[in-house]
Structures are given as structure tokens and as C-alpha cells.
């Protein structure tokens, strides 16, 4: 039986001010309500969820409205993907929020309505526990292989001081001591300080990245189907994470100058580096990770952190990376079970560059 979801409709231009205010009130209660900041917040909802790409796809973000007031928002970003070589449309869901006074049925209704859309697959990769419960009740599933994260300390004492973004006064005081400890424990290449790997690294241009991703995606059941414009947009969105450091996109070349893989990450000197994407054929995983660690070391990063790409699990372990659950879940829903199963069994090239990282407000 087809349900009608009362009060739920497509997100439109006129909803932006109310959605931004609802989101600020519920998700960022301590954010400044100053005009400048709010205007940026409104621009964000407009630019991301009402972009030409979003509108032209036919998919839409949703709002829940009661008595003329917006009480819920579910952001949807369409992304072109492929499954076994055939194109499909994914809805990456983000910024899901419901007014506390309306919680209960509204969230479930919004998600059900979203799942009933024209997309082949719905995805989210930074979901909290409560969102996971709702997704699973609505027919979604957890993709466990993509719900794990890894960390690799490079300068462990400094990493411990800045863990979780700590900026405590005592962290500043202890910083010189931490640097001294790190100098001692990393004075030789070995378990903590990466060895200089063979080959070289060169800046990865977007056209080359597009080609690299396409080649690798064809080896998995599921992955992104980028075009130049979408890839440019995703990288531009990642670069807005200024607090996380510069985005470094590098190709790894072997001694004969052939490209054997690539990585993209945020490098923040004296802080942690968030890895967005690592790509290589299995036989080159080791050397590409060697280069990633070496580059992060050279950039002064204290700790690298990324979401597990299941194919890399053995080499991550060999490189001293620790797997853990960061608190986020990757959730999937598809009317075609085989598509969701590909993600559930880890047979996908699905990195943070394709997920919500690029949809965050920065």
C-alpha cells in the first residue's frame, strides 16, 4: 500500500531561512546567531542542496512542515554511481534534523518518503546511533566494512595532546615536552617513523584522478561514476575544510615513472590528517600507503586518520594502523538488494570523497 506522508514536501528556495535556523538551533546551539554567520549558513543550504546538480537529477531534499512551520529537514545530494559497470543514481543523505518538539513519527516518515524516491540507492556515512536505528527500521542496512575508521600515530606524544581537537591551555604548555618525546621515539625510521619509500610523488591533476578512479572502480562491484565537473566540485568542497589543513592529492609513481596509485588527504602541521581517499591496485597497496605515511610525516602531521577502505585492511594493519569505531555508521538502502549487499560485503570503492565529508558545512 502506498503511504502518503503528510506534511513532507520537496525542499525549495523559500525554505532556506527556516531550515538554516532549525538546523542551527538543534545541531549547533552554541553557534553565533550573528547575521554574518547565519547568512553563510543559509548560503550553504542553498549552494549544496539546491545546486543545479541536485535540481537536475530529479531528486530533492525534503522538509517536514507543520502549520506553516518547517520542523524537519533531510538533505539529499544526488551522486552518479555505477554497479557492475551500469550507471545508477545514489542519494547521499545528510544533515537530517527534526525539531525536538516533533520528534517521533516525523523522522521515520521523512526517511520512508526519501527511500521511496527515484534513486537506486540511498547512502549516508556519518550517521549517529539513533539515525542507524531509524534507517534499519525503514528498511535500510548497516555497511559494517565502511563503518570502521583507522588511526596511525606519527608523532604519538603530540598526537595524544591534540587528540579529539583538544586545545586546552595545558596542551600548549606541554607541547614542547611532547615534541621532545617525539624526537626521541621517532629518531630512527621504524615502527613510528615511516621509511622513505621507493619511487616518487607528483601532484595529481583532476583529469588524471578521474582516469585513476575510473580504472579502479571497474574492479569493484560498486563505485562512483565521476565526470570532470563532479570531481572538481567534490575536491572544492573538501578544500573548504580549512581547519583540517590543505588538501594534498598526490599520485605515486614507481621507479619507471608509472602511476601505481594515489591518495588524497588533509595535511595539518602539528595536527591530525584526515584521509579522504586511497586508491591502488592490490599489488601496490603497500607502496602507496608507504608514500601516504611518508608524505604526512614530511608535512608535520602528528596522526593520520581515515575511514576503512576494506581492500586496504591487511596493509593498514601491517603499517601499524589501529582500527576502531569512530561513532559514525555507513548506512545503505536500495530497492535492489544486490546493490546494498555490495557495500555490506565491502565490494565497493566508496571513500569519504563520495560521502558526507564533502557535504559538511565549512
Amino acid at each position, binding site marked *: *500500500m502506498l*503511504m502518503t*506522508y*503528510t506534511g513532507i514536501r520537496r525542499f525549495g528556495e523559500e525554505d532556506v531561512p527556516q531550515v538554516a535556523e532549525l538546523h542551527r538551533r538543534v545541531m549547533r546551539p552554541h553557534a553565533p546567531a550573528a547575521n554574518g554567520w547565519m547568512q553563510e549558513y543559509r548560503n550553504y543550504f542553498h549552494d549544496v542542496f539546491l545546486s543545479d546538480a541536485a535540481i537536475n537529477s530529479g531528486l530533492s531534499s525534503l522538509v517536514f512542515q507543520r502549520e506553516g512551520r518547517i520542523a524537519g529537514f533531510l538533505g539529499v545530494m544526488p551522486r552518479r554511481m555505477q554497479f557492475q559497470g551500469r550507471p545508477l543514481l545514489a542519494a547521499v543523505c545528510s544533515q537530517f534534523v*527534526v525539531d*525536538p*518538539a*516533533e*520528534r*517521533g*513519527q*516525523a*523522522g*521515520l*516518515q521523512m526517511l*520512508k518518503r526519501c527511500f521511496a524516491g527515484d534513486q537506486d540507492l540511498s547512502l549516508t556515512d556519518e550517521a549517529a*546511533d*539513533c*539515525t542507524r*536505528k*531509524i534507517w*534499519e*527500521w525503514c528498511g535500510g542496512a548497516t555497511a559494517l566494512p565502511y563503518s570502521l575508521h583507522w588511526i596511525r600515530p606519527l608523532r604519538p606524544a603530540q598526537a595524544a595532546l591534540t587528540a579529539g581537537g583538544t586545545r586546552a591551555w595545558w596542551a600548549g604548555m606541554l607541547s614542547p615536552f611532547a615534541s621532545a618525546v617525539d624526537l626521541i621515539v621517532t629518531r630512527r625510521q621504524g615502527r613510528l617513523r615511516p621509511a622513505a619509500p621507493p619511487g616518487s610523488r607528483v601532484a595529481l591533476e583532476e583529469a588524471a584522478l578521474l582516469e585513476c578512479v575510473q580504472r579502479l572502480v571497474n574492479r569493484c562491484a560498486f563505485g562512483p561514476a565521476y565526470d570532470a565537473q563532479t570531481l572538481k566540485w567534490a575536491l572544492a568542497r573538501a578544500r573548504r575544510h580549512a581547519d583540517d589543513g590543505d588538501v594534498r592529492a598526490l599520485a605515486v609513481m614507481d621507479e619507471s615513472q608509472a602511476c601505481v596509485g594515489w591518495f588524497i588527504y588533509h595535511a595539518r602541521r602539528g595536527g591530525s590528517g584526515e584521509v579522504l581517499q586511497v586508491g591502488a591496485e592490490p599489488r601496490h597497496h603497500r607502496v602507496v600507503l608507504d608514500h601516504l605515511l611518508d608524505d604526512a610525516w614530511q608535512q608535520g602531521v602528528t596522526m593520520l586518520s581515515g575511514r576503512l577502505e576494506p581492500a586496504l585492511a591487511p596493509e593498514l594493519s601491517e603499517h601499524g594502523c589501529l582500527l576502531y569505531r569512530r561513532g559514525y555508521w555507513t548506512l545503505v538502502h536500495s530497492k535492489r538488494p544486490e546493490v546494498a549487499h555490495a557495500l555490506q560485503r565491502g565490494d565497493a570503492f566508496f571513500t569519504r570523497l563520495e560521502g558526507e565529508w564533502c557535504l559538511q558545512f565549512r
Partner: protein
Amino acid sequence: MVTSQVEIASVIERFIRKQFRIDDTVPSLGDAHLFESGFVDSAGVVELIAFLEATFKIRLDDDHVFSDEFTTIHGIAAIVEKTASVAQ
């Protein structure tokens, strides 16, 4: 096992009080709007549905869950009673 609506309501109220930590100083929840009062959120609804289905051996569909009746304990008890009767 179909018990009376009053008994069903009592079982549901006990579950909600325990699960969502509502202490005894809050008077009877029977007609209170569970969501607008802030007692149960979206994830809580999912827990409540799982509890109802397991306890009363019923299957709730979207029509039930998204109905106005499914907002108070008395309303939910009525749905459970009807659904359980049909199932038997």
C-alpha cells in the same frame, strides 16, 4: 494472547517509563502526546515498535505507526488490541 486495552496500556506505560527514564513524579502518561511531550524521539519509536511487536506478537505497518492514534499510550493500546484480535 489478547488482553484488555487497559492491561495493554499498563504494559506499554511500564516499558516507556523504564526505557525512556520517566520517573514516577510524572503523572499517568495515558493520554499524553508521547512525541510532542518529548518522552519518545524517533529512535525511541523504533524501540517502542520492536517492543510492541515482540510482546504482543503483532506486526505493525506504516498505517498504524503514522496514525494520529499512535501518539498516546491509550491510542497505541487500542491499535495493539485491534491488531492482535485480527491476527488471532
